């Protein structure tokens, strides 16, 4: 090859190179910029939301963010299928921006919601524990249906599970368990409280009976017995002054007045000792038979039978005593008042035929009773 040809070939090559270079530059300038940073920012925002558990705490927003991100990627793929110079990433950028916005909103909402759920979980656990403690202090010994007590126990276990969730920062699950626990604990607490409030409607009668019995004892300078069912005690008065207080046990269905024979309830009213029994004449160590039913009891029983509140074949109870063999830690009698044998010895010694025996719910008002139990 001649030298001149080589030089001209070299020049052509250089010119071609320059032209191609310029064409490449032009081509590159015409190629649209990929939406890499916008999509990446959206992904990072979603990852952050996921780390904060937005899937759990802000599921709707998180799903929206995720859907927009998926749409951005689908649009990007579709654009990449087109000829490079005809691509338009506007839709991709728009979807990515929405995804980022939703993800950021999900994160903010999650922080707010998880903080509030955590606070709710903590305060509700505290409240339910207090309700539970009140229930146990106040209502544990009350003759509530077994089902109510079982529900209370179930609520207690759910509360423990909610506490485990709180420790593990599973606030949503914790709150779900708490709602269930609340139904059991507050439900049983409210039911028991309603029963007790209903029972305390007779408070004015109780107060009147107890006061008149103590006044009679003061006037006559003799002995009188006052039995309080709620605090489960039996007082022995002399000359209007309280001399002794003994723990007492009652019939298993003691909350309320006795309605009929076999209802396991201990009667309420003003009675007197009719007979003193000891040795072989009673199976309960020693006993003081009382004048149940009195006139009011008979009148109320007849009225209930007439009104259909009691079945036609119902019979009025009798043989109610204050007797020994108590101290079992339960309300186990069929309606009598049971004392420990040592206490029975004392009361048996001082009581005589005709000694007044008044059985009431409580000398404390309902509020005083609650206050005394919450100490």
């Amino acid at each position, binding site marked *: 090859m001649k030298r001149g040809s080589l030089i*001209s*070939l070299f020049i*052509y*090559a250089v*010119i*071609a*190179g320059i*032209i*191609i270079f310029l064409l*490449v530059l032009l*081509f*590159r300038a015409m*190629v*649209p910029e*990929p939406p*890499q940073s916008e*999509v*990446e920012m959206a*992904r990072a925002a979603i*990852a952050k939301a*996921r*780390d904060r558990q937005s899937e759990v705490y802000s599921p709707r927003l998180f799903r929206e963010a995720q859907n927009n991100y998926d749409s951005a*990627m689908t649009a*990007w*793929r579709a*654009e*990449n299928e087109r000829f*490079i110079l005809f*691509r338009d*990433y506007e839709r991709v950028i728009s979807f990515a921006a929405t995804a980022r916005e939703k993800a950021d909103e999900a994160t903010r909402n999650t922080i707010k919601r998880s903080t509030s759920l955590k606070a709710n979980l903590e305060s509700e656990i505290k409240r339910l524990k207090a309700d539970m403690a009140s229930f*146990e202090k106040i209502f*544990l*010994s009350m003759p509530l249906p077994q089902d109510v*007590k*079982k529900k*209370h*126990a*179930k609520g*207690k*276990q759910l509360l*423990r*599970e909610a*506490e*485990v*969730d709180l420790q*593990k920062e599973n606030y949503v699950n914790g709150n779900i368990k708490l709602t269930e626990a609340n139904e059991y604990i507050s439900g049983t607490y409210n039911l028991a409280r309603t029963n007790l409030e209903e029972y305390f409607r007779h408070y004015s009668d109780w107060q009147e009976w107890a006061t008149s019995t103590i006044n009679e004892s003061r006037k006559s300078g003799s002995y009188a017995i006052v039995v309080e069912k709620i605090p*489960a005690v039996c007082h022995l008065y002399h000359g209007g002054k309280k001399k002794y207080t003994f*723990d007492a046990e009652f019939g298993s269905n003691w909350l309320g007045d006795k309605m009929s024979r076999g209802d396991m309830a201990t009667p309420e009213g003003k009675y007197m000792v009719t007979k003193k029994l000891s040795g072989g004449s009673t199976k309960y160590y020693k006993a003081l038979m009382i004048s149940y039913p009195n006139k009011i009891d008979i009148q109320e029983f007849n009225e209930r039978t007439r009104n259909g509140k009691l079945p036609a074949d119902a019979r009025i109870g009798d043989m109610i005593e204050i007797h020994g063999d108590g101290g*079992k*830690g*339960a*309300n*186990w009698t069929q309606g009598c008042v049971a004392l420990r044998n040592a206490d029975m010895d004392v009361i048996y010694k001082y009581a005589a035929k005709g000694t007044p025996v008044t059985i009431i719910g409580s000398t404390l008002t309902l509020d005083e009773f609650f206050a005394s139990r919450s100490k």
Partner: protein
Amino acid sequence: MKNRFFLAIATVAAVALMASCAKVPQEALDAASAALDSAKTVQTDVYFPAEFAALNDSLTVMLQNIETQKSKSAKDFKAIKANAEAITLKAGELTAGVEAKKAEVKAEAETMMAGATALLDEAKALILKAPKGKEGKAVIEEITNELTVIETSLTDAKTLFDGGTNYVEVVDKVKAATGGLNGIIAELKEAMAKAGVKI
């Protein structure tokens, strides 16, 4: 001369075109995706939640990078291929590790269940010796109710355990039951100590 000029342009253009026609490493990508699916099937998301989420995120980044490369005039998928292979490897490691982790949590659940059962027996035995003072029977009845509920909860945990679907859930359930049992035992022991009953 004109021919030479076009030949030169064609050569340079061909080189540029070849550079822009690099292929997506589809095989490596499919393998990474399949490895993640397998990992999820064996509950990697349950036993290694953070690692699984990170891996999933890596896959998302990789898919994004593919589109970035596809958007360019000069594409390069070498790094993506390496990335996909790394994901496949890591997913494989996690999948292999799940069995060991599962066995570990299973053993923990088993130990906790045995411990809770022993506590339940202890509480039942203590109840028989518990003092029956004032309201004693009511307290015992309450505790008995609680023990029944806890026993049911432990039975539920055992059913979950036997199902083998989620031992983490079993551990949580037994943890709550154990807390309850410890409370009951402490309460009973305190009452017995006050009443001077030998334990």
